[in-house]
C-alpha cells in the first residue's frame, strides 16, 4: 500500500529528472559527461518502469526495465566509450546554429509549447495531473530536445547521443501505454542496429592509411580546430 502511494510521486520526480538530463545533454561539452548523462537518463527510465510495475502491476514492464539496463545503461554507453577511446576524442566544442545557453532557452520554450498544445488537445480525455498526460508532455519534449541536440551538435558521435536521447523520449512516453511493451522492445533492437551501423561507418577509416583516416575524421567533424585529433 505504501508503495502504491509513493510510486506516482516517484515517477513524477523521475520524469522531471529526465527533462533535466535532456537539458544537460544540450549543454555539456565533455563527451564523457554526455555518455554518463545518457546512462543516467536511461537509468531513470528503468526507475519509471519499476514505479509503473508497482502502480499498474504489469509485470511485462520488468522485462522492459531489464532490457533497458542491458542495452542502454550498460551496452550502448560501453560501445560509445569504446569508439571514443579509438578516436581519442574528449570534448565536443563545436556547435551549429545555437550555443548551449540559447539551446537551453529554446528547450524551455519547447516544453511550454508542448504542454500548452497537449493540454488543449487532450483536456477532454485526461486530467492535467494524469500520468499519461505528464508522460506524453515530457516524452515529446525530450524527443524535441534530443532533436535540438542532433541539430546543434557537429560531431557525429554527439549527434548519436542526441538521437539516443530522442529514443529515450519515445520510451518515456511509451511506458505509460502499458499494452505496448513488445513495441518498446523492438525499438531497442532497431536502435542497436542503427548504432552498430553508425559505429562501423565511423570506424571505417581505421583500416585505411593514416592520412586517409584523418581526412575521414575531418569529414565527420571529429577533428579539433587546430587540425590534430581532439
Amino acid at each position, binding site marked *: 500500500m505504501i508503495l502504491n502511494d509513493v510510486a506516482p510521486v516517484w515517477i513524477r520526480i523521475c520524469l522531471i529528472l529526465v527533462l533535466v538530463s535532456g537539458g544537460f545533454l544540450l549543454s555539456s561539452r565533455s563527451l564523457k559527461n554526455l555518455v554518463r548523462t545518457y546512462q543516467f537518463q536511461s537509468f531513470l527510465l528503468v526507475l519509471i518502469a519499476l514505479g509503473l510495475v508497482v502502480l499498474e502491476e504489469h509485470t511485462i514492464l520488468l522485462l522492459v526495465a531489464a532490457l533497458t539496463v542491458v542495452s542502454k545503461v550498460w551496452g550502448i554507453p560501453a560501445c560509445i566509450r569504446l569508439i571514443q577511446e579509438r578516436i581519442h576524442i574528449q570534448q565536443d566544442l563545436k556547435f551549429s546554429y545555437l550555443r548551449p545557453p540559447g539551446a537551453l532557452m529554446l528547450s524551455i520554450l519547447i516544453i511550454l509549447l508542448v504542454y500548452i498544445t497537449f493540454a488543449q488537445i487532450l483536456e*477532454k480525455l485526461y486530467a492535467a495531473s494524469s500520468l499519461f498526460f505528464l508522460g506524453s508532455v515530457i516524452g515529446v519534449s525530450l*524527443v524535441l530536445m*534530443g532533436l535540438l541536440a542532433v541539430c546543434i551538435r557537429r560531431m557525429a558521435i554527439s549527434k548519436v547521443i542526441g*538521437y539516443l536521447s530522442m529514443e529515450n523520449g519515445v520510451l518515456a512516453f*511509451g511506458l505509460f501505454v502499458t499494452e*505496448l511493451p513488445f513495441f518498446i522492445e523492438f525499438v531497442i533492437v*532497431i536502435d542497436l542496429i542503427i548504432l552498430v*551501423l*553508425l559505429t562501423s*561507418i565511423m570506424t571505417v577509416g581505421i583500416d585505411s592509411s593514416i592520412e586517409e583516416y584523418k581526412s575521414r575524421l575531418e569529414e565527420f567533424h571529429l577533428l579539433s580546430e587546430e587540425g590534430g585529433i581532439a
Partner: protein
Amino acid sequence: MIAVLYPVVAMVILLLQLLLRTHRSLSLLGVIHPVISLIITLYFIVSPGIWDDSPFFLIDHMSLFVMLTTSIIFAAAALYAVGYIDGLVRSGDLEKRSLRIFYFGFSFLLAATTMAIFTPNIALFWICAELTTVLSAVLIAILALRATIDASLKYIFICSTSMLFSFIGIIFLFEAVRNKTGVGSLLWTEIVDEAAGLDSGMVFIAFVFFFIGFAAKSGIVPFHTWLPLAHAKAPSAVSAVLSGAILNIGMYGILRMTGIMKETGVFGQVSVLLIVFAMITISVACLSMLRQKKLKTLIAFSSIENMGFILLGIGIGSPVALFWALFHMLSHSCIKAGLFFSAGILHRQYKVPTRTGEDEIGDLLLLQPFAAVTVMAGCAALIGMPLFPLFLSKVGILLAAAAISVWIPAIVLLLFACAGVALLRFYLPVMAVRFPAGEGPVPYTAPLSMKVPIVLLLLLSIMIGTVMIPGEEAFLAAAVADLGFGVQL
C-alpha cells in the same frame, strides 16, 4: 498462406548468399529473389480467390499494387547490377570483399520492403520501414568513399530522427483506439473500422507525428535534404531502388494513414495539411532543379517533385485523384529507375565530375548513343509528354485539383514548366559538347545486362501510358477503395 512464400524465399536467398562465395552466384541470387517476388505478386493479382484473412499478412489490392511496383524495380535493378557491379569491381571502385555485403544488403532490403508492405500491424510496418533506412544506408555507403559515407550518415540521421516522431504518432493512435474501445489496436484494418468514433484531437496529433516520419522517408520538403545527396552519391543500381521503391514505402504509410483519417472528423484539416506540404515540395524541388549541374542530382530533385505531386493527389482525397496518384507512383518508379540506370552508364563513361561540380559530358551521341537516347526519352517522360504515363496522371490529378481551386493546377503547371526547362537546359547543351580531337575518353561498352532493364522499363512505361492493360483500371479503383475512398470514378 501462399504469402508465406515471400519470407521463406527471402530467408533461403539470404542464407545462400551467406554460404556461396563467387560473384556470379551472388549476383544470380540477387536477380532470382525479386523475380520470384514478382511472380508471386502476379499470381496473387490474377487469383483474388486465394487472398485469405491470414493474421500475418495484409493482402489487398493496395498492398499488391505497391508490391508489384517494388518487385518490378528490384528485378530491374538486380539485373542491371550484374554488369554494373562487375564494372565497379573491375575498375577498383568497389572492393571485392564488399560484394557479399552489397548483395546481402540488396536482398535484405527487398525482404524488409516486402514485409513493410504486407504486414497488417502498424508497429511492424514502422519497424520494417526503419530497417529499410538502415539497409539503404549500407548500400549508399558501399563504395566507402568520403562522399558516400557522408550521404549515408545524413540519410540515417534525418530519416531515423524523423521516424521517431512517427513512433509517437503510432502510440497516440493506439491510445485513441483504447480510449474508444477499451482495448488498443495496432492493426490497420481494426483501426480503420474504429476510426469513425475516435477523438479528433488525438487522431490529428497522431497523424501529424506519423506524417513527419514518413514524409522524411519519401523526401517531402522540409525533410528532403538527405535525398539529393543520397540518391546522387549512391551507386546507380541503388539510386534506382531508392527512388523507385523505397520512397514509395513512405507514401504507402501516408496513404494508409490518410485512409484512416478519412473516417474521422479531421479529414478536412489533414487534406489541407497534405496539400500545403505538397505545394511547398513541388515548388522547392522544381526551383532547385534550375540550379543543378549534375545529372543524378537533377534526377534526384525530380523525385522530390514527383513525391510532392503524389502527395497532392492524396491530399485532394477524391477517388479520381487517388486513382491517378497510384498510377503516378507506378509510372514514376519505372521512369525514374530507367533514368538512374542510364545515368549510371554515363557515370561509368565519364567517371568524375569537374572541380566546378559540373558533369563533364561530351561527344555523347558518339560515345554513348544508347544512354543518350534513353536519358532523352526519360527526360521527355518526366516532363509529361504524351505517350508516357506521367502525362495521364498529371492531367488527372490537376483536373481533380481544379475542383478545389484553379490556382492549384495553375501554379503547379508553372512549376512543371520550370522543371521542364531545367531538364532541357541541362541536357541540350550537353548534347552539343565536343571534346577536342583525340582528347575524349575511350568509349565505355555497357554490358547487355545494363541495357536490357532500361529498355524493358521504357517499354513498360510506354505501354502503361498508351493502353489500359485489361483489369488495370478495376484493380487500381479497388486499391483506392481498399484505402476507404470509395470506388466511383
